[in-house]
């Protein structure tokens, strides 16, 4: 009754906030798909509550947040809080985009698992997720 060996990691790519560019988000989504993951992309202009709802319903292992608007210090902690409030503290929450080095520690303190600075090679992101995504295997029903 073990989880099928091939069961893919499920990832939500969220694009919180008001900036209208999702090229980066799409590039990441494609790289993760090509690495064998199931990637759910919900589009632009998502509120934190929308992202939390999608993450819960889709039961993703990983939430990847791409943010360019500069509003990361308010939006990202709100998303983490929502996901934890829904009982999904097991989810890996990673962020990327244009997050200045000074803001990284506050985000980690707020519960973001990892922040990828601008220019992080895609391969590093893929590898990090592959290594750190929680496994649902242990779940007993």
């Amino acid at each position, binding site marked *: 009754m073990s989880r099928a060996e091939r069961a893919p990691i499920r990832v939500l790519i969220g694009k919180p906030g008001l900036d209208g560019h999702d090229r980066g988000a799409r590039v990441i989504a494609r790289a993760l798909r090509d690495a064998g993951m199931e990637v759910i992309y919900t589009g632009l202009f998502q509120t934190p509550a929308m992202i939390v709802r999608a993450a*819960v319903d889709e039961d993703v292992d990983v939430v990847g947040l791409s943010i360019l608007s500069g509003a990361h210090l308010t939006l990202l902690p709100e998303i983490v809080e929502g996901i934890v409030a829904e009982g999904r503290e097991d989810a890996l929450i990673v962020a990327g985009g244009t997050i200045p080095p000074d803001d990284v520690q506050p985000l980690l303190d707020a519960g973001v698992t990892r922040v990828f600075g601008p220019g992080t090679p895609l391969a590093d992101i893929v590898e990090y997720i592959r290594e750190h995504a929680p496994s649902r295997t242990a779940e007993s029903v």
Partner: protein
Amino acid sequence: MSERLSLRERFEAGERGALARVLSYIEDHPDLRGTWIADLPPVSAMQIVGVTGPPGGGKSTLVNALVQVYRRQGKRVGVLAFDPSSRRTGGAALGDRIRMNETWSDDGVFIRSLANRGRLGGLSDAVFGSLRAFNAFGLDLTLIETVGVGQGEIDVASVADVTVLIQVPGAGDTVQLIKAGVLEIANILVVNKSDLPGAGELLRDLRSLVTQVDPSLAHTPVVAATATSVEGVLPLAEEIDKLLACSQLDARMRAEAEVRHYVLSEVERQLDALLREESGDELVARIEAGATNAWQARVQLIGSLRPA
């Protein structure tokens, strides 16, 4: 959200996170034996509407509009939206939710994206279990969006009470429809994007096509829709409701489709494994060399299948 409650208790209490986790469990464990999830009863009250059609035809957009129609009727609505897994990597881009953002805050809507995980036919192995879970969770109606690669996606017809086939103007060739064999499975034909040029012509073509292909299809409704607004799908919703009211899919038919599905996927899994073994390799080599033939080899292979 107490840690002490079991998944089952949370599911029975109507917690959406628990439903979400049950769906994952069904997807990840082809063999549910010995779990309460395997014992969820077959779909009874819940109605099921299938939506199929070519990529970009507006399936997700149409599902999004229909969800809103059924919410206005006070129904709790589920969506199972399928997309293809890459044969090579197993990964998948699940993008149907992009078109379904309007209802995000509605507790009466539950949308789930699924990859077909290598299954042909437009759905995945998880469809039956997921429908049972939706039914047990108390949803009134579920919309299924098939993979939509435009090839023989006919599984949905043996699962849904009503199957809707989308066509769009300017996509060419209605003859392809006959070849693909999807026309026969549709209970309703929809010309979506009827705001675009060529829609009237396509409507006429389809109406004459259904009569030509098979006289018994002559009564298949052919409806125009513009899925980008709720109003644009009201005539379609009316046709769906008419069919739902009079022709529920025979529960026996769904049961047969379900058991067929499970048997075939188990056989396929075992066959894959057998052919990868050394003896399988040798067998194939002997067929290739003419020492035996595939017809005879099948007996040996079937004999090698193990009880699941």
